[in-house]
Structures are given as C-alpha cells and as structure tokens.
C-alpha cells in the first residue's frame, strides 16, 4: 500500500491549541510522526527582560492559563533566592495550597478533555461541572477564576481567613467524593478501557531516555516527582503518596492523574490544618542584586524549570522557561508510531500538552521576512559561536 502524509493542525478539532503534526500513514496506521512547534510563540522571555520584576509576575503568569501559578512560583522563588529574601512560613503554605488547587483544576480539566477525545461526552460534562467547585475555591482565595496572581515579591497577596478555610474544606470534601467516583468510572467502564488500554505505549526505558516528566513519566513506572525528589516550599512537612502506574499506556495516565487529584485533596486538608500564624509577605527591595538562580517546580504537567539572572537593576537580565510539555513532546512520535489514526487526538491529549507553555525556539528574521523553527544542530552551532565570542570554546564538547 502506498504511503500518504497528512498534516494534523495547527487548527484541528482534536487540538485545543495550535501545533502541527506531520503524519505518514500506511492505510489507517501511522508509519511516522513528526512534531512542528512554533505557532504559539509570542516572545515571552524577551518581553520579560523589558519589564520590571513585579510586571514580570503578571507576564509569566500568562505563559500558560492552566498552570499559571506553577510558572510564577517557580520564577518568583528564583528572584527571591537572588535577593536572599526568606519568605514567611504562612506564605509558603498558601503557595502550596494554591498550587495543589491548581493541580486539581488542571487534572480535572484534562480528564474532561480526555473523555471528550474518547467520545464519552457525559463524562466530559460531569467532570467540568465538578471542576467549577475548584474554580470557586480559587476565586475565593485569589480573586479570579483562572489567573489568580496570588504571588507577589516576598510572599503572597491575600490571606486565608477562617471563613475561607471552612468553605475550602467543605468544597474539598465534595471534590474528593466526586473524584473517587471518577476513579471507579475510569478503571471499570468498558468504553474507557477499550479506548485507552494499550494505546500510546511508552515503555519505561524509552521514557527515561527521552526525558519524559510528570504524569506521562509516572504512568510508565518512572517514580519522578520534584515534590519528593527535591522538596520545595513546605512539601517536606506533608504526607502524600507518589502515584505511579506500570501499564505505560493512556490508561495508566488516566489512573495516575485521577489518583493524584485525590492526593491533592489530602494535601490541601493538611495545609489548611497546618497553616502557621504570622505575616503573609515581607518587603523585598525592587532592585534585585546581581546573581543567578535556577529552580524546579512540579507543575500539573511535570517538571517546570525557570532560570533568572539579575543585574542589579529592577529588570532581569535574562529569564528562561523550560515548560514540562516541551520535555514530553519527544515521546509523542514514539507513542503515535504504529498506532491508529483514530487514536491520534487521544494520544496527543494524554501528555496533557500545553502549547502556550512550550513554544520557545523560533527565529524570526524580519529583514528577510522569514521565520523558521531552529533545529537542535543549528541551536547548538549558534550556542558554540555565541560562547566563542565571549572567550569560551565548547566545540570540543560532545553530547551523548
């Protein structure tokens, strides 16, 4: 049979965000898949250099609308590290609280989208109805449903009052009960099983080699979670389980995310009961001294890395964002190849992709009116030349 190649995206009903996949088909089966990025590139990192640290909080938050708290917390902890500011314990607890609420919101959203891709619209509507509870919680804590901007330089903006605490505890109970229902639904309903089992398989060794992270990695049996490996904020004081699955397929990713939601409910309860007394923020000077910091954060989709370099002014010299989805993209062609065309949207959705997070390495040459996505080789060559001009020679270094 002759092979045909079809493009999928950037506008596609199965994809909520712009990305392009090049698929080579042999009949209904996928022979080869490639990923094309760059449709969502806005130039956030460059824009961050032109704004002050405080303005950057609101810019970095808009890197992604779903994991906005993750990006900001990761960025702001870098800035606080450079400024050598130790934030109050209560602020740390509130950051964890919002982070876990966000994880619930993100995982429920994903479960809904996955149900939609399966064609199980009832589950989609059910999940999104219950997700409103967590959005109400976030609105109560931060003042907005999606971009809650709870973080500020030196702590958090708003406190948790006893009324808010009581309301949160009430809503968490509802959410936990509903999530447990979805756990049985996702693991016993034959429609879900038929569509997810042995689909989009990523074996453990391949997952490690390709650097998968977050629920995608944990569903392949890789016990990797920044909250456990390198506890930040107050995670070392909390008791929670690291969820893994060893089925390595989409079904495993469903199970990991649903069970993680239950764990997040437990964490929130612990944080609310732990909440130490004290101020919620400290004063940090607007001018941040020279220095650099890298921080890791377990976002709902996986490991988020931010690098910030300060130069003594009120604006950063450089901000670099490595979003979790970027690490998971490499695994997608491997998951797709050998599979069926009808499963493509589900497999892509299963890594919970966030295009807005990950579009980074795009080069636009305005003079020539041309834009292109750089390949790894080109980026490496450019990097070597960049450092040569500064007196460091990396050309002898070989990569394994």
């Amino acid at each position, binding site marked *: 049979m002759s092979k045909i190649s079809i493009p999928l995206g950037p506008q596609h009903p199965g994809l909520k965000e712009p990305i392009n996949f090049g698929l080579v088909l042999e009949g209904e089966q996928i022979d080869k898949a490639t990923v094309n990025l760059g449709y969502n590139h806005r130039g956030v990192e460059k824009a961050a250099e032109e704004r002050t640290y405080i303005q950057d909080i609101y810019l970095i938050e808009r890197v*992604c*609308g779903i994991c906005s708290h993750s990006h900001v917390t990761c960025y702001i902890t870098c800035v606080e590290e450079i400024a050598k500011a130790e934030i109050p314990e209560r602020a740390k607890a509130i950051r964890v609280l919002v982070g876990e609420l966000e994880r619930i919101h993100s995982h429920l959203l994903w479960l809904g989208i996955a149900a939609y891709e399966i064609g199980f619209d009832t589950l989609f509507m059910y999940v999104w109805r219950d997700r409103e509870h967590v959005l109400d919680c976030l609105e109560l804590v931060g003042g907005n*449903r999606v971009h809650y901007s709870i973080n500020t330089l030196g702590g958090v903006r708003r406190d948790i009052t006893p009324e808010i605490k009581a309301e949160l505890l009430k809503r968490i109970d509802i959410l936990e009960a509903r999530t447990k229902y979805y756990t049985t639904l996702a693991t016993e309903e034959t429609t879900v099983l038929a569509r997810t089992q042995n689909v989009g398989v990523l074996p453990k060794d391949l997952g490690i080699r390709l650097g998968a992270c977050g629920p995608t990695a944990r569903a392949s049996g890789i016990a990797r979670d920044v909250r456990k490996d390198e506890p930040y904020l107050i995670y070392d004081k909390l008791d929670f389980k690291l969820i893994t699955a060893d089925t390595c397929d989409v079904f495993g990713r469903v199970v990991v995310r649903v069970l993680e939601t239950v764990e997040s409910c437990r964490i929130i309860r612990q944080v609310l009961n732990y909440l130490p007394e004290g101020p919620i923020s400290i004063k940090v000077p607007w001018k941040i001294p020279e220095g650099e910091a890298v921080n890791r954060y377990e976002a709902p989709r996986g490991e988020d890395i931010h690098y910030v370099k300060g130069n003594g002014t009120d604006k950063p010299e450089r901000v670099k964002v490595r979003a979790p989805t970027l690490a998971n993209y490499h695994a997608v062609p491997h998951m797709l190849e050998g599979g069926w065309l009808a499963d493509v949207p589900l497999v892509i959705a299963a890594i919970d992709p966030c295009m807005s997070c990950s579009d980074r390495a*795009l080069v636009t040459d305005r003079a020539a009116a041309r834009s292109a996505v750089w390949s790894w080789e080109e980026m490496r060559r450019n990097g070597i030349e960049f450092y040569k001009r500064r007196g460091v020679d990396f050309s002898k270094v070989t990569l394994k």
Partner: protein
Amino acid sequence: MKTKSLKEKIITWSRVKSPWILHFNSGGCNGCDIEVVDALTPRYDLERFGIQLKPTPRHADVMVVSGPVTRQQIKRIKRIYDQMAEPKFVVAVGACACSGGVFDGCYCVAPGGLDKVVPVSAYIPGCPVRPEAVIDGVVKLLGSLQK
C-alpha cells in the same frame, strides 16, 4: 425603514436561534480557551441559546478567537476566515485578542490585536474573560442581528 419580508424574517430567526461557533486559538495562553469551553459546559450552558461548538469553519457562523495573533498564525487565521460561509462573524475574546493585552509589543505578536488581521464584530474584554462575559457578549451579538 423597509419592513422585512416573511422570507427574511425566517432567515434571521433561524440564524439567531442556532449560531454555530468555531473556536480558534491564535496563540493565547489557554486562559480564555478554558473559559469559553466553561461557558459551554453545565453551569453556564451556552447551548440553551442554540450555540454549538463546531469542528470545521465551513459549518460555523461565528469564529471565536482567543489570544494575541502570533506571526505564525496570521495567514492561518485569514485562511480560516475565508473558508467560513457568509454571513460570518468574528468575536475577539479576551484582552489579548481585543488589543494585544499583556503581549502587545512582543516581537512575535502582530501589533494591535485581532482587528488588524480580520474584521471583528464583537469584543469581549477581560483577562481571562469570565463565562458570564462570554454569554453577555454572545447575547449582544445575537441581539444586533435581529435589528
């Protein structure tokens, strides 16, 4: 004012009662996208106005665009706009689509928002928009069709 014939009345009535929408993310942060989907799910339930999400531009009457228009997306958004059947409407959802928002001035974003790229019928501001605002904007757009 010219009175409408029965045929025109029926056409307007059917248009107002079943506007099918196409959702297009022109490079946004997802915030508005999830709120648009939120407006279609049980709590807000936009479907009671006959609004349905459609996967293809050829079936859609209204294109809902969220996010700043990135340079990569300019020609795609024009192409999708051309594929829609007449009469067609574009709704700019969120501060970024209305004016560029927080990303205005970024090197990879078309300056000045969506209306510099395709004609826009309604603007819904907010960062991100609330589902109530989406419903309000859509109802106002439908109201303007009846006139």
